[in-house]
């Protein structure tokens, strides 16, 4: 295997935008839809996932020489579960209200396919430095997506952001937005928007190529 040139900047941007785990790869849908009915819940969930992903990527990458191939998945799961337990107890101690809101979804981070996917696809075959940068990018991308969804749903569903009323007491709440269908609708519309952006960029690139290929 030829050594790739390490480009931490590109690895970070990849997770945040081009390969965004939610809007492009459509991974981790379960927490995405379940806990994004308010911006604060979305941020807490994103923060918890952020910590677990970065810490597990770091550990998996450091231990990658010693993890036997045959049992690698279960090893990743044990590492991830350790950090999830740490997050679970920390959150319960620091913010019991948010912890109660999120309920079973914090322990369920163990089963978040985005985290396991990064270990298998990236951390286990790259240097610690790159693995951490990749995890930072992916986790920021996930946090960004969760926050966007949570903010849209809270603004429309309750007329507020982080519990602060935006439009005054006369706002008519869109009840559907804080219910599960609202999660699906908002996510679908956001996916639509990001696909449209991507397609538009590709179209522009093709146009540009054609223009450059034309004889002067």
């Amino acid at each position: 295997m030829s050594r790739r040139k390490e480009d931490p900047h590109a690895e970070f941007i990849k997770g945040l935008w081009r390969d965004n785990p939610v809007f492009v790869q459509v991974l981790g849908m379960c927490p995405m839809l379940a806990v994004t009915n308010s911006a604060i819940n979305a941020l807490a969930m994103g923060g918890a996932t952020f910590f677990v992903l970065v810490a597990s990527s770091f550990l998996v990458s450091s231990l990658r020489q010693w993890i036997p191939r045959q049992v690698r998945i279960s090893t990743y799961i044990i590492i991830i579960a350790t950090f999830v337990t740490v997050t679970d107890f920390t959150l319960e101690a620091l913010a019991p209200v948010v912890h109660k809101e999120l309920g079973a979804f914090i322990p369920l981070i163990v089963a978040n396919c985005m985290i396991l996917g990064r270990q298998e696809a990236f951390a286990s075959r790259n240097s610690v430095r790159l693995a951490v940068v990749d995890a930072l990018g992916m986790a920021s991308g996930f946090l960004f997506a969760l926050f966007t969804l949570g903010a849209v749903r809270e603004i429309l569903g309750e007329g507020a952001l982080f519990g602060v009323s935006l439009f005054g007491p006369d706002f008519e709440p869109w009840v559907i937005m804080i219910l599960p269908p609202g999660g699906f609708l908002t996510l679908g519309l956001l996916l639509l928007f990001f696909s449209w952006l991507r397609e538009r960029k590709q179209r522009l690139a093709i146009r540009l190529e054609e223009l450059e290929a034309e004889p002067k």
Partner: protein
Amino acid sequence: MNRGEPKLRLQASPLLRQQLTTRQAMLDVLLALMPATLAGIWFFGISALLVLSASILGAVVTEWLFSPAGYRGSRLNDYSALLTGLLLGLTLPPALPMWMAFLGGAVSIGLGKLIWGGLGQNLFNPALVGRAFLLATFPIAMTTWSAQSAPGEFFRIGSSTLAMPFMQPGYDGVTAATPLGLMKFERVSTDLWLLASGNSTGCIGETSGLLLILGAVYLLIRRDLDWRIPTGILVSVALFSALLLLSDPERYPGPLFSIFSGGLLLGALYMATDPVTSPLTPTGTWIFAVGIGLLIVLIRVFGGFPEGVMYAILLMNSATPLIDRYTQPRVFGKGGSSR
């Protein structure tokens, strides 16, 4: 050089063309809906007209906005967005804020039609998608029914109609329960003639049963309507209601009340018959219609909502591809006794 008219004219097939175009079919339905629409405006005053205009505007603007730039004119010219907007408006409460009606029209076309690929591609009836969205989003505004406008108050516009976008409506008119709500929650029946003539509470276009039937007769004569669907729905609703009435005359409404109350006629005649979202085969059409009829009575009598026409039609819409698949006739000369 002048050789006159050619004696032999060569032309590629098809040689016989039908006059019916999408545009003509939509125009027919619009025309058929006019009596009921005008009656709705007459009964509920100028507010109803504003609600109808807002939902039509929402539908048409969305169609224009999300159509490819070169096709905008032709997309709007087939009048399908106009019809969807009107059908949605007819299923809205007359005192609904205009901004909600506009949003409903936009959702009907955007999420009900365009996102599936445009005209002819959608799985669900677009107008009902808009209405289901509005009912789930604004449950209170969608179930606040204003009473019919009193004599001399035709031009009075309720303050709820003009509520600012995104703001709560304030109701200043008289509100009343619908005949179905009265039946379900208070066990009070409404006089049949009031229901049939449209002199009752409800959505803008659903109250005048006789005028809806009049429009449908015109569509039947023009052969724009598949007679099997309304027949199947009405007969199954009537039979099911009659059975319930026999089992306990105290608790259940009779067949005629079931048919003339709520949105049943509007739904059965104009929404379930949407050629895009109903099955193509005759057998399938019967299954579809009877399914809708049974679901309507089930939801009305045993469900939490007083009205079930919208959910019944949407549920059977989702079964349409399956019904079509299982009721395909055998192609002549192909296949044996079984596939």
